[in-house]
């Protein structure tokens, strides 16, 4: 985390009106991305709501420590990823899936180039969640991050602590595993 900016006034600012501050722009531009990540990573709308609130509250408190080395979106993602991973670790859930990806991938006969076909878009969210729940945290996170068109492989690599090439390789396997599991949810 960045150090506080030198020379900042120590006088407390008046309370901020979320509806009229720059912070409201930050929220408006990024809340969907952060909420979606939390929703699909945690798999629970209420937990995602709590997590999104906590992420933006933390961002609000730390905004003056943001030096602009990364994009704001990337900075928010970093806070969100840390928060969501801490929550999942606390719950000690779904560890049984940690090695499931490779087994699925190695036994896969699915055609990865074929389109993912859905007949009923109303149930799409449930199918996606079920599929993501079957993936490891690492694959799930990579897929959710690469789905954000604002993020490059370099930025994703920085967020997950891996090289862009490693990200590309893992994403290839993650996509294939997702396709196999998604077919099974039909």
């Amino acid at each position, binding site marked *: 985390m960045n150090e506080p*900016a030198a020379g900042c006034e120590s006088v407390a600012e008046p309370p901020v009106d*979320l509806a009229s501050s720059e912070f409201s722009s930050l929220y408006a531009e990024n809340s969907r991305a952060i909420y979606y990540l939390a929703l699909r990573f945690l798999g629970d709308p209420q937990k995602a*709501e709590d997590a999104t609130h906590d992420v933006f509250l933390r961002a609000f408190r730390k905004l003056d420590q*943001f030096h602009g080395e990364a994009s704001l979106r990337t900075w928010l993602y970093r806070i969100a990823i840390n928060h969501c991973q801490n929550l999942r670790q606390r719950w000690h859930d779904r560890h049984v899936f940690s090695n499931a990806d490779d087994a699925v991938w190695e036994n896969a006969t699915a055609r990865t180039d074929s389109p993912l076909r859905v007949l009923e878009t109303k149930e799409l969210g449930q199918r996606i969640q079920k599929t993501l729940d079957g993936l490891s945290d690492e694959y799930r996170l990579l897929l959710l991050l690469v789905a954000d068109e604002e993020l490059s492989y370099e930025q994703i690599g920085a967020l997950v602590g891996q090289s862009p090439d490693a990200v590309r390789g893992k994403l290839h396997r993650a996509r294939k595993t997702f396709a196999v599991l998604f077919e099974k949810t039909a």
Partner: protein
Amino acid sequence: MKHQIKLSREQQHAAEHQTQRQAAREFASTEELLRYDAAHTTVPPAIARRLQKSTGDLPGPKANWWKRLFGGTQP
């Protein structure tokens, strides 16, 4: 009469097929599927309300944080 029934069944089948085709949707990639899902996900308005309340008693971010973001031009 029998011919009529057959036509009717064919029409019914065609109508069902048409309905199914309209509901079906194909995604070229996992990313496309997830982007569609994200675009159709609504952020609960309660989050903004809770944030408003949570930040209400806190001092705001230092006034110059936006200068680092927008190059000194206040939006």
